[in-house]
């Protein structure tokens, strides 16, 4: 199973980035806590609009099951939900700690977006 974490850097020791669509990197790990892939999200960082939707698409294409992030807007949430990706929002700290928290069952999944749409 793949878990995605929004990150400010490329390693498991990087601090998380609270933004979903516009985080510089999205780290993909497995449920053993090992790093599988680092997605460079630069294209979405600079997108005018629709960054969250495109980020959701790239997670869906990789078969991600769980997303750990800070904020998730309505369009991104709809897209993630359609892809069957569970969203653990309001997460912060270092990537591997968030991953650890999730693996220990400490993350509750969101029922809806926790950020406003960007205009």
């Amino acid at each position: 199973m793949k878990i995605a974490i929004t990150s400010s850097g490329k390693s498991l020791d990087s601090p998380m980035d609270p933004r979903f669509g516009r985080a510089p990197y999205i780290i993909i790990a497995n449920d053993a806590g090992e790093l599988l892939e680092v997605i460079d999200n630069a294209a979405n960082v600079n997108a005018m609009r629709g960054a969250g939707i495109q980020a959701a698409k790239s997670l869906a294409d990789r078969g991600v099951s769980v997303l750990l992030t800070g904020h998730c807007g309505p369009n991104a949430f709809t897209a993630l939900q359609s892809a069957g990706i569970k969203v653990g929002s309001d997460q912060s700290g270092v990537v591997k700690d968030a991953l650890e928290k999730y693996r220990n069952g400490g993350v509750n999944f969101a029922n809806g977006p926790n950020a406003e749409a960007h205009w």
Partner: protein
Amino acid sequence: MKIAVASGKGGTGKTTVATSLAASLGRRAQILDCDVEEPNCHILMSPEIESSEAITLSTPLVDMSKCNLCGKCGEVCNFSAILTIGKTTLTFPEMCHGCGGCMLLCPEKAISETPRELGAVETGSFEDVEFVQGRIRIGEAMAPPLIKAVKNRLNPNKIAILDAPPGASCPVINTVKGSDFVIMVTEPTPFGLHDLRIAVEAIEPLGIPMGVVLNRSDIGDHEVQTYCGEARLPLMLQIPFDRQIAEGYSRGKMLIQTNPDYVEKFIGLFEDVSRFVRKRSETKQEPQS
């Protein structure tokens, strides 16, 4: 002849100049209020509105019983308005710019059009001046297609005066595009100069000649004049601060209604603009050596 009136900074007197210019030209003129978010030529002109037409944008509607989840629609969309994800194709109508690419590319013909209301275009007249204005639906983010609908009513037999929104972004560019001349209205303050520079820089790549009207020309500093000299922007009209004009404006009256002696000045402004445009088209037609 198409003359756009733009500014950069808000509140410099674009609408004052546009309405008085059109009204001074009388039956030769048509005024098009392209500031669709806050159209207010009508406040100064009180035109009779004869017709109103709703303007819509065609956004995609997906029939999931036909969709094969190929994702071509999402690949062509530049605005993330449609996306195949998981076992479905989602649409985000408020993101759609209405290009229709997804509908064209869908191999299963699963996408049909559904209209999103952008606003309305109203047409009428003020005395002999033809009047057109766009009015965006509150909550709608996309002004350019509505501005295009306003410009579709442009009468080629008239001198069209297009009142642009303030700023230097898409709605301004969409308004001035295709014009023969842009009149930039500004005021002699650091704010007026700052925003004028931005607007000039934004419009310059379109290759449309520009000139400046300086409103409240005797307040503030001399920097706008200096800039106009450096940037080779002709200073076409100066309107000194006048309490009578300000009072008239505050009661919703046009400048030429409170100060009729300005009619001649606005006709002069138009003649200067047309001379400028004519001269430019002549030099353009000369064979290049």
